[in-house]
C-alpha cells in the first residue's frame, strides 16, 4: 500500500497539499494509503458509504454529522485533497507555529478553525448560529427516546440560556468559543500521531 500511495501521488500534488495543510511528506503518503484502503470503489474518491463502514463512525450518534463535515456542500464524493483539508483541522499546533506573525493567514489547525469545525457539526443550516431546533436534534440523537421531548426542550433552553449573550436565543460562533474557553481545544482537537 505504501508504494501504491507514493506511486499514485505525484510529487507536485504532495507539495501542494503540504503547503495547504501543513502535513509532512510522510504523513501525506501514510494518510493516502489509509485513504485508498477506505476507498472500496477504487475510484479515487470516498463516498458516504465508505465512511459509514468505519465502526466508530457507524455507532456514533453524531457520525453522520462528522461524515458530512468531509463533504463540500451538495457533493457526495470527496477526493484526497478534500479529505486532507478536513483532516488538517486535527493537526497539532506546533510551537514554532504559535509565534508566527499574526498577519499571515490562519492555518487550518488554529484554535479558531478547530472550533469552527466543531461548531459546524451542530450548525446544520450553516447560518452561523446554533438554534434551539438544531440543539434538539443533536440531543435526540444522543439520548434516543429515553427522555421526554419536554425535558429535552428544557435542556436545550438551558443550554442556550447559559451560552447566549446577546439575547437572540441561539448560540453564535463567538458564544460557542466562549463556552469552550476552558476546554483545551488545541490539545483535544489534535491527533498526536499526525505530528
Amino acid at each position, binding site marked *: *500500500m*505504501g*508504494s501504491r500511495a*507514493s506511486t499514485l501521488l505525484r510529487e507536485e500534488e504532495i507539495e501542494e497539499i*503540504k503547503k495547504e495543510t501543513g502535513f*509532512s*511528506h*510522510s*504523513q501525506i503518503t*501514510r*494518510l493516502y494509503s*489509509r485513504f485508498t484502503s477506505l476507498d472500496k470503489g477504487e475510484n479515487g474518491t470516498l463516498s458516504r458509504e465508505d*465512511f459509514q463502514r*468505519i*465502526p*466508530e*463512525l457507524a*455507532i*456514533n*450518534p*453524531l457520525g453522520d454529522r*462528522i461524515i458530512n463535515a468531509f463533504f463540500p456542500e451538495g457533493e457526495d464524493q470527496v477526493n484526497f485533497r478534500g479529505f486532507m483539508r478536513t*483532516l488538517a483541522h*486535527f493537526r497539532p499546533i*506546533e*510551537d514554532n507555529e504559535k509565534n508566527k506573525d499574526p498577519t499571515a493567514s490562519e492555518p487550518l489547525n488554529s484554535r479558531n478553525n478547530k472550533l469552527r469545525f*466543531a461548531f459546524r*457539526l451542530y450548525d446544520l443550516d450553516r447560518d452561523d448560529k446554533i438554534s434551539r431546533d438544531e*440543539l434538539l436534534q*443533536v440531543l435526540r440523537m*444522543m*439520548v*434516543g427516546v*429515553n*427522555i421526554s421531548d419536554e*425535558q429535552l426542550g*428544557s*435542556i436545550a433552553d438551558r*443550554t442556550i440560556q*447559559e*451560552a447566549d*449573550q*446577546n*439575547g437572540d436565543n441561539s448560540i453564535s460562533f*463567538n458564544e460557542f468559543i*466562549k*463556552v469552550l474557553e*476552558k*476546554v*483545551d*481545544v488545541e*490539545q*483535544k*482537537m*489534535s*491527533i*498526536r*500521531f*499526525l*505530528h
Partner: protein
Amino acid sequence: MFLCYVLKTASHPFFLHNPFLYNFAVDYGGSSQKRETGTCHRVTRAGNSEGERGRKVTEEKSHRDKGRRGNIKERRKGIKEKYEVEDECDEDAPKRMKNRDNKKTRKNEEGEKSKRKTKIKNVKEGNDGESDDVKWGRSKKKEKAKKKKGKQELVEESSESESFSEGGELPEKKEGFTQEELEQLKEAVDEKRKLIITLKGKPWPMRKKLVTLRESQQFLEKYEGALGKGKGKRVYACKVIVMKKWMKFQRDLENFKTACIPWEMKIKDIESHFGSSVASYFIFLRWMYGINLILFGLTFGLVMMPEALMGKPYGSMPRKTVPRGEEGGAMDFAVLWDFGGYAQYSVLFYGYYNNQRAIGWLKFRMPLSYFLVGVGTVAYSYMVVIRTMARNANRDGGGDDTSFNFSWKMFTSWDYLIGNPETADNKFASITTNFKESIVEEQESQKDDNIHLTRFLRVLANFLVLCCLAGSGYLIYFVVRRSQKFALDGLENHSWWERNEVNMVMSLLGMFCPMMFDVISSLENYHPRIALQWQLGRIFALFLGNLYTFIIALMDEINRKRSEEDAVKLNMTAWEAGLYNGTSVGNASGPVPVHPADVPRGPCWETMVGQEFVRLIISDTMTTYITLLIGDFLRALFVRFFNYCWCWDLEYGFPSYSEFDVSGNVLGLIFNQGMIWMGAFYAPCLPALNVLRLHVSMYLQCWAVMCCNVPQERVFKASGSNNFYMAMLLVILFLSTLPAIYTIVTIPPSFDCGPFSGKNRMFDVIQETLETDFPAWFGKVFSYASNPGLVLPFILVMILAIYYLQSTSKTYKVANLDLKKKLQTQNEENKKKNKKAALKAAAELEEAKNAATCRQETECGESGQDRDITTSRQDRDITTSRQDRDAPSQQLSRGKASVNPLFPGLYTEMHLTGKQIRIPHIKRRAQQFLVVVKQMHILCAFALL
C-alpha cells in the same frame, strides 16, 4: 502500547479523534511512536520505513531502487544515518533488506499488540462514564489530570524539538528531507566545528563568545551522534534505547495502575445504568473492603499466624482442648456451624490463646501483640475514617465552575473513540442518566413552592418521626426489661413467644419503621439526595436501639458467666485437692498426669462474646443474601415470566421490579462494620469473615443490581466520596469501641483462658512489658509522662488548638463562599450588560443606517455636479463610521474594540481579567482552609485516641 498512550494523552474529545484517523493510528502505531518519543528516531524510524518498504517487496522492484527509496525516507527524518546509508545502499542492499525484514516482523508484532490493547482500552473507556481522559473536560479534576499529561507531552515535545531544530537552521520539522538538506546539515555541523576552533580569534565580546561556544557545542553533541559520526554515536544510540524503554515502562505502569483498581469496570457499568447514587454504595463497599483487608492483615499476621505456628499445639493444655463432655459432637456440622466444638477451641477465638509471655524461637510477645493489635485495629480505623472525611471535605471545598453545565454536557459528552456496540449502549445509558440527573438538579433548584407550607410539613414530618422513634425506643426498653425478668425466672417456664420476644420485636420494627419513614418523608418534599440522608439518619437512630438491646443482653450474659466462673474457681481448688489426695495415697512422686480434656474449666466469657458476634455476622450475611435472592431475584423472575399470563401488567403495575435500596444497604454495611469493630478483640477471625462477606457481596450485589433491579424513577447525583456515609461510620465506630473498651478496662479477664489469664486487668500487659522488657529509666519517664499534672494541661492545649483551628476554618469557608458568590454575580451582571449593550448597539446601528441613507439622499439631491470638499469629507466620515458599525469583528482586529462599547468582546475581556486576578486569591484562601481542616482532623484523631 503507544496507542494506549495516545488514547490516554491525546484525550480525544469530541470527534477529534476521528475514528478513521484512529484506525490509521492503529495501522501505523509504530511509526507514530517515533514522533512522540522524539529522540528515538533513529531506531524506530528505521523500523517503520522498513514496514512500509516491506510491502514494496511484493512489487518486484530492484533492490537497489528500494534501497534508495528507503534511504530517502530515512533521511527525511532520521538524518543521522546519512553516511552509512549512502555508503551501504548500493553494495549492501540485500543484507540490509534482511535486517529490515527482521525489524519489520518485530514491528508487526508490536502493531498487533497495540491493536489488541486498544480494543481493551476502548471497551474500558467506553464503559466508565467518566473515563476522564476521553471526555471533553468537564470537571476540574479532569482538567488537572489533563494538564499533567499535557506537561508530560510538553517534555517529550521539547526533547524532540531540541534534537531536531536546534539553532533553527534546520527545517527538519517540515520533514521533507532530501539529499541537499542532509548536505546542508553536514555543512552546518562542519561549520560549527570550525567556529569552535576559530572562536578565540573572533573580535566579539566575551559573553557572546561564551554563548556561541556553548550553543555550538551542544549542537555538535546532538548532531554528531545523529549523523553517526564521531564517538557520540554509541552514546547516542544507548541514550535513545534507554529513553525509549523508560517511556514504554512509564506507559505500561500507567495502564497497569488503572487496571489495578478493583471492580472499577463493574462499578462504572452500574453507574451508567443506575446513576451515581447506586454507584456511591458500591464505591463505599469497595472502600470498606480495603479497610477490612488491612484489619485482616493485622490480626492474621500478628495474632493468628504466630499462635498457630509458634504457640503450643492443640491438646497440649486445657484451654486448647475440647472438654470431655463436648468431645462427642465436636465435629458435627451443626456444632461447627454454630462455632462450637473444634471451632471454639482454635485460633479463631480469644480463649485459645496462651498467656505465655514469649513464644517460639522469635520470643514473640504474644499477649502484648494481641493487646496492641486490638488497640491498633481501632486506632487505624479512626485514622482512616477521619482522613477520608478530611479528604472529601477538601474536595467539596474546591467547587467547580458550573456556569456552562448543560453546554458542556451537550457538546462534549459523546466519546468518539468508542468502537464497540456494547460500549456504545453503555455510553448511551450513561449520557441519558447524566441528563436525567441534571434535570432533577435543575428542577430542584427552580422549585419555589409555598415556603410556609413546606416548612409546616417538614416540622410535622419530623414530629411524626420523633414519635415513631420514641415509641419504638420505649417498646425496645420494655421488651428488654421483660426478657431480663424472664431470664431470671429461667427460660424453660415460658412460651416460645416470650423467649424470642426481643428478636421478634426488633425485626418487626426494622421492617416496618423504614417504610413508615419513607411515607413520612414524602411529606417533606426534599431534594432526593437530602431525602436520602434524612432517611438514613432516621433508620440509623432506629438501629441504635437494636444495638442497645444487643449490648444489654451481652452484658447480662457476661455477668452471668462471671458468677459462674467464681463457682468454678471454688470447685477447682476442691478438685485439685482431691486430685492431690488421690495421688498421694498411691505414690509420692507428684500428681498423676491428667488429660487436659478432663480438667474442669471456667466458662470463658470472652470466647462467648466472640462467638456471639461471629454468629451475628453469619446470620446477618445469610439474611442479606436470602432477601436478595427472594426479594429481588425471584420477584424479578416472577414479574418477568408471569407477565405473559396475568390479569394486569406486572411490570408497570403492582409488584413491578424492585429498585436498589441504597439507604438500607448502606446502613447494613455500616452496622455490620460496627459489629466487626466491637467483636474483633474477642474473635480475631472476624475481619477475615468480613472480608469474605464483602467480597461475595460485591459480586452478588453487582449481579443482582444489573439483572433484577430497575433504576430509580428520579435518578439523582451523589458524589462518589460521600461524607455522609463516613460521618455515620464514624459515629458507629465510636459507639462500637465504647463497649469494647469498657469490657477491656473494667472487667477482669477469665482466669483460665486467653492471653491475659492470670492478670488483674487486660491492660496490665503494658505495665508488665514496661517493667521487664525496657530499661528502668524508660518506665520512670513513662510514669512521669502519665502523671495527671502533665496529661491534663496537654489535653487542654489540644482542645484549645482544635477550637482555634475550627474557628479559622469556619472563617475561611465563609470567605470562600463570599468570593464565589461575588464571582457569580459579576458573571451574571456581565451577561446582562452584554445583552443590553448588544441591544443598544443594534438600535444605534439602525439609527446610523437610517441617518446615513437620509444624508446620502439629501446630498445626492443637493449637489449634482459640483461637490464641496467639506461635504465629501463628511461623506467619507459617515461611510467609515458605517463600516465600523457594520463590521464589529473588523474593529476587533484593529484594536478599536477596547474603546467601542459596541462590541461585547470588550466585556468578555474585562470579565476574564477580573477572574484571573481573583482566582489565585480564592485558591490561596482555599488552600489555607484545607490546611486548617487537615490539621484539625489530625488533632481530632489524636484527641480521640
